[in-house]
């Protein structure tokens, strides 16, 4: 079974985000694999281990520094990596096209992505990639099994879980399930240095969705401590009713 996992380099979730013009200030920001993409890598490695055969290929569209995240994925256990070098913009369709250009020839059995990148949180590249490849797509998958050329996936929807089935090949976007992503072992890190990491220009095309400006979040008006302990409850309820008018 050949599995492609598409991952993205993003700022660490605890990073201090400072706006600078129409982008964020990159100074001092540590980058990581988007946490949901780690769940996708883990799911792919587990499928390969269960089948005892196949290949896990990690692909990323991004700048040259994304090689660092691809190496981490190789250290986790992926077999090889492809870096499609280019500027990722707000236009997720451009990213999806670059991935599709790479994946079309590879014809994988399964394509996994994190359900969102924690930077722009558009949740769009997975389903767009599926459309471009003409493959079925299941989003927000917390659990999956592959059997008889089919994938059975649990997908998180409002107020519950849908159990769906799809023929293979398919594109799945992955959310947190019961399996935590593994940490690269020392042996894995050493092995990753020798694994192939191919770099080539991304076929991104033109970005048709442009960030014209960026701003910090609006300040919230200063709040107040209503009081201490249970005695403050009646006043809180009064304020919620009469001042905030939310009850």
């Amino acid at each position, binding site marked *: 079974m050949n599995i492609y996992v598409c991952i993205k380099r993003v*700022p660490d*979730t*605890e990073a*201090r*985000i400072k706006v600078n013009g*129409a982008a964020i200030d990159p100074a001092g920001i540590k980058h990581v694999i988007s*946490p*949901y993409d780690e769940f996708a890598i883990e799911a792919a490695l587990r499928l390969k281990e269960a089948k005892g055969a196949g290949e896990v290929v990690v692909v990323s569209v991004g700048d040259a520094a994304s090689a660092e995240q691809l190496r981490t994925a190789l250290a986790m256990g992926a077999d090889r990596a492809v870096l499609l070098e280019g500027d990722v913009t*707000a236009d*997720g*369709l*451009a990213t*999806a096209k670059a991935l599709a250009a790479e994946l079309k020839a590879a014809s994988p059995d399964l394509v996994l992505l994190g359900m969102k990148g924690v930077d*722009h*949180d*558009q*949740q*769009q590249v997975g*389903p*767009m990639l599926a*459309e471009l490849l003409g493959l*079925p*797509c299941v*989003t927000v998958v*917390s659990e999956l099994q592959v059997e008889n050329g089919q994938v*059975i996936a649990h997908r998180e*929807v*409002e*107020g*519950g879980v*849908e*159990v*769906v*089935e*799809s*023929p293979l090949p398919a594109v799945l976007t992955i*959310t*947190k399930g019961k399996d935590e992503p593994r940490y690269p072992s020392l042996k894995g890190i050493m092995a990753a240095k020798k694994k192939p990491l191919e770099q080539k220009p991304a076929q991104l095309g033109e970005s*048709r*969705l442009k960030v*014209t*400006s*960026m*701003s910090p*979040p609006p300040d*919230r008006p200063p*709040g*107040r*401590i*209503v*009081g*201490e*302990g*249970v005695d403050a*409850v*009646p006043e809180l*309820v009064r304020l*919620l009713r009469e001042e*905030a008018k*939310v009850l």
Partner: protein
Amino acid sequence: MAKILAVVEQRDGALRKVSNEVVGAARTIADAVGAEVHAVLLGPPGVAGGAGELGRWGADKVLVVENDALAQYSPDVAAATVAAQAEGDTYAIVFAASAQGRDLAPRVAAKLDVPLAADVTAIDASNGELQVTRPVYSGRAFATLAFTGGPRVLSIRPNVFRPAENAKSGTVETITPALDPSQARVKVREVKAASGDRPDVGEAAIVVSGGRGMKGPESWNLLEELRDALGPQAALGASRAVVDAGWRPHAEQVGQTGKTVSPQLYIAVGISGAMQHLAGMRSARTIVAINKDPDAPIFKVADYGIVGDAHEILPKLTEAIRSM
């Protein structure tokens, strides 16, 4: 005349509340650029009955597909049908950034070969060209985006847009799906309801969220009782710490590695307020914090705070709200 498609949603044959918001946002754009609003609705037989109601929020037409197989959302059928309706002069297509809209909008955008701006919290078409604003880095910054050409595809965050009454005819027309539902590749085998009719934390008007200060999962009945007292639009949320500890499911997690929420009222109980949690809830209209530590960062974003033990305060708060 140009048109704007408003892709609306149903559950159990009834329109979901976010549908009014989608139609209202579409109307705002339509009035600025001079277009009609055509709502598109897929659902089980009978769903057309109440669809004319969308006229009240500004739909000129409501195009309805009724089919037994569409009681549950079918991505393949919905994507093909919405894309087919976008033929002709379509200025924009508006979705909800709900579980369904987040799944559907990118498929439609890719079919039409246009980009998508997802989870939009503000729209501005006042100068005749649509610009949208959306949170990035989980609300730690806001980006304003401009489209090049159309149709401009966007999804709007639930609970943020307040639709104005703007009565239009809301003429209901039945249309055929662009793909026979029996041809859908992805099929739903089973639906396991987690919380009955409760809204998802990402869409609830009121969120009661618990953190490590609750001490353990056995205390969650206190939060459940408060949620129940607050009515059917209230849902439970959780901090990352308690999800990582296995006390609560990830579906409830609020924050950058969970859901970003914008409810009318957010009650944070025993949550200290790590940066990644604050990012996920700071756009709530009113924030209440209950925490033992008066220096907890959560009090910096809260409109109202009570310093004290959640186990004592919660039962009193629930009782006070029940007796209203």
